[in-house]
Structures are given as C-alpha cells and as structure tokens.
C-alpha cells in the first residue's frame, strides 16, 4: 500500500460564555472566597448551583452560602497530570460534598499519594492567590482535620459581578487524508493533478475521495486531468479574510480542469478582476515549494461554450 499522509491537527478556540444570574453569582463568589449553592423546592442545597430545579424544572434563584470544608464522597488517582489541569504533580480527582451542601463538587485534591486518600476524608478549599471569578479560583482541595467551617450567610449579591467567562477549547487530532487523497497530494508535488475514475459512471473525481458518492463504489483507476481548465462560475471577493494574505479584490472561481467530472476552487490572476468571465480558459501558475497552484491565469484560448461546462458544479 502506498504511503498515506498524516499530520497533527489542532482545533482550538476561545469560546465565550454568558453566565446568567446563578453561575454569575457562583463564580463571583469564588473570587470573594465565598462558595454558594442554590436551594431547590424540596429543600436541598445544590453545589455547584444550577438555574433550574432538576426535579420540578422550576427556575431556582435562592442562593445560600456553604462552608469551604467538606467530605470526599469518591475519588480517582491521576498519575499523570495533563496540560491545564489544576495541579502539575499527581493528584486525586475528588467529588467533595461541602458542609451544608447536598451534592458534590468535582475538583482536585492535593495529596502525596493514593494511599493518603479515602472516601469520607475531610478536606478544605485551598484558594488561589489570584482570583478572577472562575472555578480555578479554587486552586484545589487539601486534607483538613479541623472543625467544619461556619459559612457567613452571604446573600449572593455582589458589586461588580462576573458576567462572562472565556472557555477555551482545544482538540488534538492526528489527521490523515486517506489513500486516495494522499496519492492526489503526492502527485501535486510533481505539479500534476491526478484524480480517480468511477468504474460505473466513468466520471473523474478531483480531488479523489476513494469512492464515487453517486454510484457508491470504490474508485482506484488514476487519471491525470488538466493542466488547462474552464472557469465555470466565480465571485469577486472584496473583503479581506483575516487568515489570507491576498489583496482584494480578487476572483474566487470554480475551475473544471479538462477531463474532470467536477470543478475545484481557485483564484484567478493575470487578468483584471472585472474581465474574468464564465467560460474563460485558464491554466495553473505554480510557485516554488507550494503544494497547490498559487492561482490560475488565462491561456489565451477562445472561451469555452456554455454547454460544455454548465453542468459541472
């Protein structure tokens, strides 16, 4: 089997979250070293608090302060902390039922080893030095053998409440384009465009996907297409994209390479943008070291007849 390409793909984005009244109070409380829960209709105190009663579905807003001390209800040892976890040395993930709460909060427990952790052990909050209104304002929990702390009865009202957070998300993938596209990409390094022909409908897919989506059969017969092609349709882009270093206006076109069953997308250059037209005959322009043609330019041939390309998407 020929070489299949692989590369890392990192998808990350700093999503923002509006908190709403309950999460706003909870996170602002942490900033002020106050842990808040919410009372349900049946008199339980939920920590962390939620906006809606899990039993009755009613809106709940009755915030109550609970103690920063509590009891471990269950735990798991984390041998190898990963990036952005609460501690960078091995620690226990714990569910802690704080004194005054009926539900448990998930956090980290700083402990020397798994032998020192047990269900039922007493712990207390270790506050972060710098607090901004986030769950990380609790740096972690630590073992505690004193009396339960007394909550001060905070009302849950704060000046300068936190109303939003940034919830950064990151996913690490290993991406592989698969056999058919690897062959296509490898051929591009010789400045050749190679697709695959469907054994059933005989259409040539560029780039190939390894199967024909219309006939539902595998493709394998390689077919070189182009280098010439026809502009089947296009638009003139007048707004600059953040991630692209292309001067506007430019023409973004669908180009059916000669012999291909569908169009690929590319930029048209070497002609004023307002003279580009459907049917224009073009060819690729390569730059040294680039994987794809930099753009396509007119070949000077007469325009293609509408009927020859109108059904090429």
């Amino acid at each position, binding site marked *: 089997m020929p070489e299949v390409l692989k590369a890392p793909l990192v998808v990350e984005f700093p999503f923002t979250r509006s908190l709403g009244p309950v999460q706003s109070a909870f996170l602002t409380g942490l900033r002020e070293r106050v842990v808040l829960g919410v009372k349900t209709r049946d008199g339980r105190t939920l920590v962390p608090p939620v906006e809606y009663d899990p039993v009755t579905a009613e809106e709940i807003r009755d915030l109550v302060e609970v103690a920063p001390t509590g009891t471990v209800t269950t735990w798991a040892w984390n041998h190898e902390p990963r990036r952005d976890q609460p501690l960078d040395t091995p620690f226990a993930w714990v569910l802690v039922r704080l004194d005054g709460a009926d539900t448990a909060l998930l956090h980290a427990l700083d402990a020397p080893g798994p032998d020192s952790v047990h269900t039922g052990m007493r712990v207390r909050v270790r506050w972060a030095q710098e607090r901004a209104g986030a769950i990380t304002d609790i740096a972690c929990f630590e073992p505690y053998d004193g009396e339960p702390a007394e909550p001060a009865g905070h009302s849950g009202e704060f000046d300068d409440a936190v109303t939003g957070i940034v919830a950064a998300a990151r996913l690490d993938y290993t991406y592989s384009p698969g056999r058919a596209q690897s062959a296509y990409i490898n051929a591009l390094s010789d400045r050749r465009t190679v697709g695959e022909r469907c054994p059933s409908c005989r259409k040539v897919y560029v780039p190939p996907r390894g199967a024909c989506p219309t006939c539902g059969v595998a493709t394998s017969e390689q077919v070189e297409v182009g280098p010439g092609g026809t502009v089947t349709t296009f638009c003139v882009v007048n707004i600059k994209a953040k991630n692209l270093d292309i001067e506007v206006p430019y023409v973004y076109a669908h180009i059916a390479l000669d012999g291909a069953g569908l169009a690929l997308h590319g930029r048209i250059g070497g002609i004023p943008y307002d003279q580009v037209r459907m049917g224009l005959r073009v060819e690729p322009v390569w730059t040294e070291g680039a994987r794809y043609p930099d753009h396509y330019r007119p070949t000077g041939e007469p325009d293609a007849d509408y009927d020859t390309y109108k059904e090429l*998407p």
Partner: protein
Amino acid sequence: MSKEPVAVVGIGQTKHVSARRDVSIAGLVREAARRALDDAELTWADVDAVVIGKAPDFFEGVMMPELYLADALGAVGKPMLRVHTAGSVGGSTALVAASLVAARVHGTVLTLAFEKQSESNAMWGLSLPIPFQQPLLAGAGGFFAPHVRAYMRRSGAPDTIGSLVAYKDRRNALKNPYAHLHEHDITLEKVQASPMLWDPIRYSETCPSSDGACAMILTDRAGAARSPRPPAWMHGGAMRSEPTLFAGKDAVSPQAGKDCAADVYRQAGISDPRRDIDAVEMYVPFSWYEPMWLENLGFAAEGEGWKLTEAGATELDGDLPVNMSGGVLSTNPIGASGMIRFAEAALQVRGQAGEHQVDGARRALGHAYGGGSQFFSMWLVGAAPPQT
C-alpha cells in the same frame, strides 16, 4: 394503522439580537420553551419527550447540549434526543419530534433549536485549517456567491432581483417583534448602494449573526382538542440529503431539494404549489436564494423564479408571500433558523402572526437547508386537520 395526526399547539421565540449577554445558553433556551408552553397553556409535566437541535459543535463549542440542558428543558426523567443536520437542523429537529407523535410513541413533545452566535465565530467554525488542504479562499458568502452567479446566467435574471428580496424581507421584519434586524430607515436605494462583498452578493443581501432560540409544542389529536388556541396541523414533512460535491451536482437547484418538496406535496395532496399554498417561510440566507428556491420548490418553472419576485408576488400582500417574518435575512441564529421557518409557517395557519399575518392563510410551507446545499427539510402545515 394510519399515522396519528400531528398538531402544533405552542410556539415560542426569543427576541433575536446580536448578543444575549444577560442569559446563559440554558437561560436562552428556557425562555423560548417557556413561551411555547405558555402559548399552549401547558406545564413541564405535560411534556413527554424533548427533541433539540443546534448548530454544528464548532460553531459554539457546546458538544453535548442534551447533557447540559436537560434540567433547563424539564427533560429529567424523560427521553431527550439531539438532531444534527447543519443549517437545516431546526427543520429536521421539528420533523424528528413530529415523527414521535405521528408514530404514537409520545403524546406531547417539546422541540427546540437554538444558537448563541455571539459566543463563538461561525466563520472560524467553517474554515478550520485542515492539513494538506488548500485554505478556503472566500468564507460562507464566497462559497454561495458563485452559485448565485451560475443562477443569474442560467435564468437571465436582471442584477436587481437580489436587492428586491432584501428590501422586502427587511421591511417584513419591521412587522415581526422577534426579528433581529429592525431597519426602520431601509430603502431600496440603500440596499443597492450597500458594499459589494462577494460580487454578486451585497452586504445588505446577507444574513446577520444572531443569538436566539425557537420552541414548539407538538401533540396528538387528543392534545389538539385541549388546545386553547387554534392548532396548526401537519399535512406533510420530509427530509432529503445529498453529498456536498459530486459529479453532476446541481448546486443551483439541488435534486435533494426537489425530491424533498415533491414528497411533502404528495403527502399533503398538493398538485399545484403556486395555487395550493398560501404562504412560504423559506431559508434564504443570501437574497438570491429566494428565486432559486422558488424554482427548486416548484413554485415556478426553471429560470422563472425571479419573475415572481420582480412582479411582487412574494411581497406580504402578493399572491405567494415569502418570508413574512423577515426570514433568515433579518434573523439568523443558525441552529434555530430552520425551526423559525417551520414555526412561522405554523403561526400563519393559526392566524397568530400578528402584523405579518397573511389574511386567510390556510396552508403554509416551512423550508430549511444546510451544509453545502446538501440537507433539506420541509413541512407543510394547515389550518384544518389532515384528511386521513
């Protein structure tokens, strides 16, 4: 055994805006759901199941909304399902909910779709840098603009048609209190003078980016009999899919859209959609999609859709009003946009569309599409129960 007839007895929307910073996502969906329950005069306990839809996960970074939103939607102890079909998701979510009632699995179902575009960046979500692939050179508008040009060439439509659609939809939005854009000083000249972003698409011919949610209460015949307000009855519903790109794809008038409409019309006994349907809420994120979908949905012959727009047939007082609510061009919380189309169609046949009501609307079509014109979902609702 025939299917159980499905009725819409409750509809709720949030006021769509560019950013709802005062509520969490849970608070946003709750607001729409609460309004739908109030409209139906029902409580959380009356709901047997919840079916939700939202935009693709990267659009807002919520991977499992069904876990996070169960308590906000009163779903604890009940079945809760999530539906995914890109931009058409609001429509397909409603159809999945409807099928649960039609199959007599549940008597009353809450269905809801939402998006908080302000908490993410849909453009980023659409253009992840995939290794070895050429970066997308144009974004969403640039993706659709070449198809619009292909339509203009194929149909010979004059350049001005797109601006007529935008001018109409933005004026309709002024009559809809829930619409996002309320451009009180809109004129045709302003639309035509707005900047050309992706020629042939101008700024004023594109949809906004919105935060919003839409909910409906669907129920069976017994539930409809208890409804305090007139129900909308489902007469037909269908979904169709096709690949984004394939040899032979007609991006201007996709086969999946034609097949989906034909299926809905067959179920509803519609032989001439132009004559038999009184109002349409169709998914038009770029103004030119109105004439394109008029043809795809069979309201006009191929190449003739723009003539309906030009003649004013699709205006609020025309003989085939389209997007009375102001449409996606005036309100676009992507994950909810399809359900808003379905709900607005239902509002029309219930006679509850307020200032944007079409007089005497008896049958209305709700339409959604998504992805690269590859997912279609539609329903036809009527003021009278379906004949079974």
